[in-house]
């Protein structure tokens, strides 16, 4: 009996000793996290940004999502995926040039391989044969990331209409990529499928609806995690961009 008692006592004291004491250990864990409130962060456009976050959220809730869902109801997922592949294939110049600008020679080469393979065997890029058959994956790079890789800081945060969170650096990046985006060059020519600027804007809108239709659940689920939408999205955007630049 006494033996049992003793062993119990010993093991209990061991349990007690092994119990984590977060108070002691957490002191230096705390230093890994930054205080990224609007006051601590350089966020001169906070008021406007909050307003635009609201506008974009309404745009998404009442226009973009219902449209994308209706579209998804009519068009099967495989077709939407194919269209998404075709669009991504068109954006090849953006990825190619920015990989080159970051001296990522192999990635730039693989991007070229992908473009050739997917445009031909993949039938205008509808099928991503390069990834499916040869396991050559896309290397997403844009001019914002290139600037980041050169050491340009992110600057102030800005929420753009419809496009969403961005910052000073990525705004310049967007302008740079605009010139590399084939959709920019869709204009009224006899040989073109679209006849005027309105229709070329329509193509961009269609790209957006198609892309949204494939990611509605992801975005909704992400949004449910937010308690305050603006700082939540700002934090995610900036952290994600930093990660992409570091890769």
């Amino acid at each position, binding site marked *: 009996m006494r033996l049992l008692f*003793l*062993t119990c006592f010993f093991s209990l004291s061991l349990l007690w000793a092994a119990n984590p004491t*977060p108070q002691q*250990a957490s002191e230096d864990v705390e230093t890994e996290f930054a205080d990224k409130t609007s*006051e601590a962060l350089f966020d001169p456009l906070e008021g406007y940004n909050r307003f635009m976050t609201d506008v974009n959220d309404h745009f998404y809730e009442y226009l973009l999502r219902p449209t994308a869902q209706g579209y998804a109801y009519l068009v099967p997922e495989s077709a939407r995926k194919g269209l998404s592949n075709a669009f991504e294939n068109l954006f090849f110049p953006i990825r190619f040039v920015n990989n080159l600008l970051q001296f990522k020679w192999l990635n730039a080469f693989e991007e070229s391989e992908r473009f050739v393979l997917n445009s031909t065997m993949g039938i205008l890029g509808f099928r991503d044969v390069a990834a499916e058959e040869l396991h050559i994956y896309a290397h997403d790079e844009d001019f914002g990331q290139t600037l980041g890789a050169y050491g340009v800081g992110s600057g102030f945060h800005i929420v753009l209409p419809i496009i969403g969170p961005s910052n000073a650096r990525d705004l310049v990046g967007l302008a740079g990529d605009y010139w590399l985006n084939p959709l920019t060059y869709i204009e009224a020519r006899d040989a073109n499928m679209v006849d005027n600027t309105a229709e070329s804007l329509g193509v961009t809108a269609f790209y957006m609806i198609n892309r949204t239709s494939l990611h509605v659940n992801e975005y909704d*689920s992400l*949004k449910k*995690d937010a308690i305050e939408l603006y700082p939540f999205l700002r934090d995610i955007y900036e952290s*994600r961009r930093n990660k992409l630049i570091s890769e």
Partner: protein
Amino acid sequence: MLQKLLSGIWVMLVCAHSLLALPESDITPFMRSNIDLATSILRNTHLSKPERSGKIFAIFDSVFDYTLMAKLSIGAKQWESLSSEKQHEFTKLFEMRLKNSYMEKLDLYTDEKIVIKNLEKIKDTRIHLTTHLMKNGEVYEIIYKFYKTANAGEWMIYDVDILGVSIIQTYRTQFAEILAKEPFDQLLARLKEPEPADTKKAPQ
């Protein structure tokens, strides 16, 4: 007699050890076998969603330090200013929120594969376990961040990085913004909301 006592102690020692501690050498095997187990639970369509998540939480609860996560999310300064009841209430609400958010994500789960990529010792008291989630040929990087508890040899998770976004940091930023404008009880109330759908109507 003495021998019996010693062997008894030894047995108890082993038991206590396996109950709590996650030594460094066990992190990878523990996570690998339990991620595999969790994957098979997720694929088990015979179980309801709460059943599946319940089983998964039972596996991982022992390695997640929810108290520390809660504390980090509002910051030590704020934490110290709270009574222990408030600290406890907040921790429970925060833990529930993390779990609810995880359960939401289960709906998105189809046939992803999760593999452990590498375990990196950042410093004496930190380990980052990098895992890759594969979906439609795309790779999503998830990093589990472990710290060494005050008791040597034991490791627990204090944060998870998804695609470079720290979960704790996103909460920390939001809580700081909220607490700059509202009292702590208001934050508790907002955490209690079953569906935080009112984000856009948040008071400025």
